[in-house]
């Protein structure tokens, strides 16, 4: 019997052709991991092409997962284990594997032709290329074929079950519960394909028993009690929007146009029609936004979801929403840009577009989700602010959050705050008339009467409004007042103060993350502390308005480091706003931030400060 080694955490990456079923197997492994009680975080990574040429570097799809017996915030920087379905998968990923890490490779695919395709002169499984690693090379294809031989499938179809053979093997190595996956395969597939997948999975699991591979256990992570599920950022976003609709008593209207990596929000909402969700796939991004704005005018909670290029197209319509002062939630699942850029890769380079990317002075609230499950809260919050403050809100997520998944403590929806649209149903002026631009004195939100309300007939539009009557006004003084008013209205949105996380209270360096860099930044700060240094970290979820105590907090540190997946957009904002020397830490590789690299940088900064101050 194999001995079992205890691990605190491990990072596994499964890589193969984009048609190999990598994402499906990876997703299932994450689910087994959840059932085993570990904390986890995942990073799917796939090419923009649906089926890139087989066996090429460009066609490699991968799925990375970190599992741990403690609270983790990222899918990990570098894998400890790499499953390579073919030479291309090996070549594309070997540079990331930790030295001494485990490689599981399918020898059947290491043919002279496949090796030549990716420029291997010799078979790396046979020469010294992989000497620094543990190599477990098996003919996984042949073993899969043997496992399903009795089912009468053709060779091609039979070989398709290889992803579940590998899942079986990994499940054995990491002591994942197998029963759930068998049930899942029984339910998800039909006929011969179902039988083949089940047989391959069981064979892979059994193969583990017969190999000389080491077996590992990872204890349960201590997590607060509750009912959990696995959730991706896009799913959490969709659910947050639905929850806000339910808590506001409105129907949800989503105007959408397909765009990677936001399309899953459209897909998820399109399947939720029995919950009052109207999904409208428009002719273009502009119409998606326009129809949503129309539905908002008509009294729905209206949202549109897109990525950077789509946000650019919606710009004029969002400006109209600013002028009409109607609620609208615009989700921007950021990806690498500019232009088509890196459609399937992550980036945070739309921050300034979200802040300022409109003509005229057109301020609006900007919120950034900080983790896949955090997308739920951020989406809910975006809807609440939009409805209660009568304003478009931009919610920034990104490709990493969208596709990454983690455990989510399912909230009690009834405990979420009630959202009050407060529609106007009676005249609100001393003259007995309805004035659409009369405001709530505290929030400055305008009165909102829905069409169909008798006696409150009125017209609104993109032309400047008289501050009193709401009628068209070209008065210079009135325009100046309205610009100021629209600015003050956004500033009136209440945002919680920030409190830097500094366990020792002795930090002189503050690292400020926003959105998806929260996880890696938190983890990097932990590493810095484990090295005996002091550091404070904080994450910004509200980018506009910024927390009112932020300037004071920033000024309390000797140095402020801002890691972002762009060329320094938040640091630019902080410098402009607070005259603080916020230093950008820029990464633009289409990948999440590396916590190890960031930790190294932060250690150097802390050491420099110490030297200066000693």
């Amino acid at each position: 019997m194999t001995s079992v080694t205890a691990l605190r955490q491990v990072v596994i990456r499964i890589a193969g052709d984009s048609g190999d079923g990598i994402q499906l197997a990876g997703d299932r492994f994450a689910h087994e991991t959840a059932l085993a009680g570990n904390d986890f975080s995942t990073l799917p990574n796939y090419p923009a092409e649906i089926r890139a040429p087989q066996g090429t570097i460009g066609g490699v799809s991968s799925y990375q997962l970190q599992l741990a017996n403690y609270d983790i915030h990222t899918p990990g920087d570098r894998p400890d284990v790499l499953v390579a379905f073919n030479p291309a998968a090996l070549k594309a990923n070997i540079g990331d594997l930790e030295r001494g890490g485990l490689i599981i490779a399918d020898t059947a695919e290491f043919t002279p032709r496949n090796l030549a395709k990716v420029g291997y002169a010799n078979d790396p499984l046979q020469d010294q290329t992989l000497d620094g690693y543990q190599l477990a090379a098996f003919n996984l294809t042949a073993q899969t074929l043997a496992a399903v031989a009795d089912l009468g499938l053709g060779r091609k179809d039979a070989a398709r079950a290889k992803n579940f053979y590998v899942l079986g093997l990994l499940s054995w190595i990491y002591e994942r519960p197998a029963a759930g996956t068998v049930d899942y395969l029984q339910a998800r597939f039909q006929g011969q394909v179902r039988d083949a997948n089940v047989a391959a999975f069981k064979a892979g699991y059994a193969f583990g028993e017969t190999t000389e591979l080491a077996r590992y256990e990872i204890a349960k992570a201590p997590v607060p009690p509750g009912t959990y599920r696995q959730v991706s950022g896009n799913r959490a976003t969709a659910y947050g929007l639905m929850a806000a609709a339910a808590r506001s008593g409105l129907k949800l209207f989503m105007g959408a146009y397909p765009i990677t990596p936001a399309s899953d929000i459209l897909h998820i909402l399109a399947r939720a029609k029995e919950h009052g969700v109207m999904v409208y796939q428009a002719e273009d991004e502009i119409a998606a936004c326009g129809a949503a704005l129309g539905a908002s005018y008509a009294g729905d909670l209206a949202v549109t979801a897109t990525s950077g290029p789509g946000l650019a197209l919606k710009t004029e319509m969002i400006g109209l929403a600013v002028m009409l002062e109607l609620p609208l939630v615009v989700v921007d699942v950021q990806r690498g840009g500019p232009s088509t850029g890196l459609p399937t890769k992550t980036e945070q380079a739309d921050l300034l577009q979200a802040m300022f990317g409109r003509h005229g002075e057109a301020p609006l609230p900007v919120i950034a989700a900080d983790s896949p499950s955090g997308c739920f809260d951020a989406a809910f919050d975006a809807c609440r602010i939009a409805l209660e403050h009568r304003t478009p809100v931009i919610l920034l997520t990104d490709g990493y959050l969208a596709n990454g998944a983690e455990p989510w403590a399912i909230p009690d929806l009834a405990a979420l705050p009630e959202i009050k649209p407060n529609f106007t149903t009676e005249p609100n002026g001393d003259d007995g008339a309805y004035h659409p631009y009369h405001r709530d004195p505290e929030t400055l939100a305008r009165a909102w009467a829905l069409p169909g309300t008798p006696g409150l007939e009125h017209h609104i539009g993109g032309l400047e409004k008289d501050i009193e009557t709401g009628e068209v006004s070209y008065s210079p003084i009135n325009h100046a007042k309205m610009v100021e008013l629209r600015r003050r209205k956004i500033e009136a949105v209440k945002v919680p103060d920030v409190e830097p996380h500094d366990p020792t209270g002795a930090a002189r360096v503050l690292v400020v993350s926003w959105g998806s860099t929260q996880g890696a930044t938190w983890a990097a700060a932990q590493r810095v502390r484990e090295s005996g240094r002091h550091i404070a970290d904080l994450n910004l979820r509200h980018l506009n308005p910024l927390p009112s105590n932020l300037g004071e907090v920033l000024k309390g540190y000797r140095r402020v480091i801002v890691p972002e997946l762009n060329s320094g957009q938040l640091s630019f904002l902080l410098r402009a706003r607070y005259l603080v020397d916020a230093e950008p830490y820029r990464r633009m590789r289409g990948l999440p931030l590396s916590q190890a690299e960031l930790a190294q940088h932060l250690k150097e900064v802390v050491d420099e400060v110490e030297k200066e101050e000693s």
Partner: protein
Amino acid sequence: MTDATLPSGLSGVPLATGELNRKDFASDQEVRWCPGCGDYSILATFQGLLPQLGIRRENTVIVSGIGCSSRFPYYMNTYGVHSIHGRAPALATGIAIARPDLSVWVVTGDGDALSIGGNHLIHALRRNVNITIMLFNNRIYGLTKGQASPTSEIGKVTKSTPKGLVDEPFNTVALALGAGATFVARTMDSSRAHLAETLAAAVGHRGASLVEIYQNCQIFNDGAFDALKGPDSGLIPLVHGQPVVFGKDGSQCVYRTAEGSLAVGPTDQAPDGSIIVHDAHREDAGLASELAALTDLGVIRRSPIGIFRDVDHPTHDDLARAQVTMADDPAERLAALQDYVTGPDTWTV
């Protein structure tokens, strides 16, 4: 309450509770079109038509884009949105989907609908959203002071085309038919009675109705439709079920030649049985398209007007709404959503 006596296009819209008249629909805003603009007569006709529809004033929404015609909502005492250039059909679609109890109108022009907003127009027609589109066609950009529009004739000299326009214009009716529109009509600002009856038929149609309104711009394109006036003009009235004849005493007609194409000629010389009898309810748009093609694309001397096509198809908004359900009771709705969000694959700590 709603009434089964309303035409299908207004089905679902609540009935007026009292008598309404023209003045009830005029806003207190000063109308700011140029003196003599064709828009005045369209506005007056429209304000006269709405009280006759029998629906509540507050359930009418008028959405416009940008251009002279798009100032329309400000002058109507109904709900209205003056939106951005070309996008009115997009907003109107969202409103129509969200609220079956509203009568939704789009007011647009040739530049707004056919140039910057062309994509939204064709898709609104293709989807057959229950909206009524009034497209004021003056064959010029008026608000921006006189540039060529997508319906300006080839060779036209304007501020943007000092040596003459080199582009062929759109034939609005043909474009709408090509987009699969279920109701397509053409009328004129100066023919108040025809305008009123055409708009009444359009709003009564369930689905996207496009009404092209020839509209004179006195400042930048004066007299663009003058050749269509007078008893001997080339204005060809289309009346469902009637032979297509025009001119003084019906002296001219549209007939089918031996080769199979449509032609225009003296009624008394048309071969027996060759005169076209208009059929607006034909499922295929072939005849409507042939009639649309009789429109002059250059200076307009000949043009059919009336309802080219009027067929019943399911509407996008009705079908989309039928797919969406929700528990009426908020607590039930929340409980159902709680189950949905929880999903089948959970674990409990």
